[in-house]
């Protein structure tokens, strides 16, 4: 249905362009479709705002992250004294903590996804491109890892190698690449056999040109969609880890770590839980909305 609508809109646009008929690439189409998705565009704005605040936010407050205010322990959020988000049970300023936590949570979400993306794309493309027995062995290994509940694996890695923040990045990334590898492999395999690739081969295109012009553009779509869905997944995994006490350690903090601390005193000082948890939920929500919008934009037949 949307496809028909998109086509009709496209025709309309062409007619409006009155003579200035220029072909539109699928990417331009996708961008148009994405910008028309109001929920996704709103999510982009909100996420951008959160990202900016994670950098600017801590500097706006007169308080430092590790500054203990003995006269304001567990103060509720208020405008006077510039305690916008209140203070925690040791008198640290929640505004500063929340935005510093945002920095770490977002960084973890993005960096772990980059690690997963790198491993997954290289692994999946190799398996799909080589095919045959190599492919079988490589994907069998992925199956082995799939059967292992992944959080267990991360917990083992983190307890064994110490609770270092870089290790948390690496552990999550090393574990979350499996689905990426499967997606890339499947796409590569099916693209290899498509008629237009055959036609390109018959037309005398070089191998590099085929990969660049035909394989990559067709693989990139699903990968982009999966990346936007993987970022929130990884933020969530980090918050699980922090909740279990295995994630980011003091003096650094993350939303997960703040939530875990706030959970202990939810009856008396609920804002310690509610503020970081709301930001976490809103961020995940935005990423999921963007992922959904991208899926619709890049793969119109899916809807």
């Amino acid at each position: 249905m949307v496809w028909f609508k998109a086509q009709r809109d496209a025709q309309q646009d062409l007619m409006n362009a009155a003579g200035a008929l220029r072909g539109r690439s699928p990417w331009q189409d996708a961008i148009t479709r994405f910008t028309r998705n109001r929920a996704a565009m709103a999510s982009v704005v909100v996420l951008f705002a959160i990202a900016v605040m994670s950098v600017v936010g801590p500097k706006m407050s007169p308080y430092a992250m590790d500054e203990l205010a003995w006269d304001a322990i567990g103060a509720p959020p208020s405008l006077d004294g510039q305690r916008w988000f209140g203070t925690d049970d040791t008198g640290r300023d929640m505004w500063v903590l929340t935005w510093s936590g945002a920095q770490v949570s977002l960084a973890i979400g993005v960096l772990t996804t980059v690690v997963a993306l790198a491993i997954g794309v290289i692994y999946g493309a190799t398996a799909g491109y080589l095919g045959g027995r190599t492919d079988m062995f490589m994907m069998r290994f992925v199956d082995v890892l799939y059967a292992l509940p992944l959080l267990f694996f991360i917990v083992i890695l983190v307890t064994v190698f110490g609770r270092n923040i870089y290790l948390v990045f690496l552990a999550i990334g090393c574990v979350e690449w499996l689905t990426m590898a499967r997606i890339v492999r499947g796409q590569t395999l099916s693209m290899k056999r498509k008629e237009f690739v055959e036609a390109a081969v018959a037309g005398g295109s070089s191998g590099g040109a085929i990969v660049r012009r035909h394989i990559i553009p067709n693989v990139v779509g699903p990968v982009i969609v999966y990346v936007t869905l993987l970022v929130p997944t990884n933020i969530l995994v980090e918050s699980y880890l922090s909740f279990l006490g295995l994630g980011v350690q003091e003096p650094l903090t993350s939303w997960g770590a703040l939530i875990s601390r706030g959970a202990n005193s939810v009856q008396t000082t609920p804002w310690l839980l509610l503020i970081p948890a709301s930001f976490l939920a809103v961020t995940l929500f935005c990423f999921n909305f963007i992922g959904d919008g991208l899926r619709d934009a890049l793969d119109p037949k899916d809807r």
Partner: protein
Amino acid sequence: MAGYILKRLISAIPVLLGISVIVFVIMAMIPGDPATAILGSYATPENVAKLNRDLGLDKPMVERYFIWLGNMLTGDFGRSFSLNRPVLDEVLDRFNATLVLAGTSFVLCAIFGVAAGVVSAARQYGLADKAITFAVLIGISIPSFFLGMMMILIFSVNLKWFPVSGMWPIYGARDIGALVSHLTLPAISLAVVATGVVARLSRSAMLEVLRQDFIRTARAKGMPGKSVVVSHMLPAALLPVVSYLGPAVANIVTGAVVVETIFQLPGMGRFFVQGALNRDYPTVLGIVVVFALAVILMNLIVDLLYGLLDPRVKAGR
């Protein structure tokens, strides 16, 4: 059928071996040995050496692995370093709680996820569809521990509808009613994310099927709308959903670790984290193997279900 099941079970053996090797190697790379972890930092070197000998940790890693493997094949998973009890007993003790929790959530997510997906596909772009899509996105974005804590706060602490934690009442009968009231909140908080994913999958699968020729044929024959949905569309649309249920098991089990911690259920999750922290590698290995076996079995069941739903798969076997 029996041949197929047997073949799948045999093919699970290398997978289990692979997993146990990976975990064993990682656990063996631990800096600082379990003996020191057990005896504490004031232990004399002689005592540490003796305990290492008693636990069999003085042997080379490869030899240790094969000893462990040989014992495991006879059903002996070794003794937990920290509890000094047979690992298998301890694991199975806790496995029941995890199994009940994960199983309930699994059933919940399958039923409600598919129902939501079907309704929202049948009313595409209608009010119900928009409401469900929105609810699903919110559901996917709420961390299960946050949801769990909020539900405890609202339903247990304020409204007192459900107990705050645990699996059984401390005093009183351990009957099914007690179990249900203890497990309602944990099962819901664990099921929400998976329900959302299943709903999304079944919605897009239903929409995909909607456009196919055999649906048009069925409608052209004059088949009433509801029966087309139930007898033609649903089986076809369930295929991608069923194939997600395999990974869903692994996800739910992972989530169970966290949910068990919040609701203080006597499951494997907390036990596992403690085991890893104590460098208690027989326990960690035992839990991983039992879990992997459960996931593999679940995947087998899912694949068998897939065969039942899709006649094309049977022919290809």
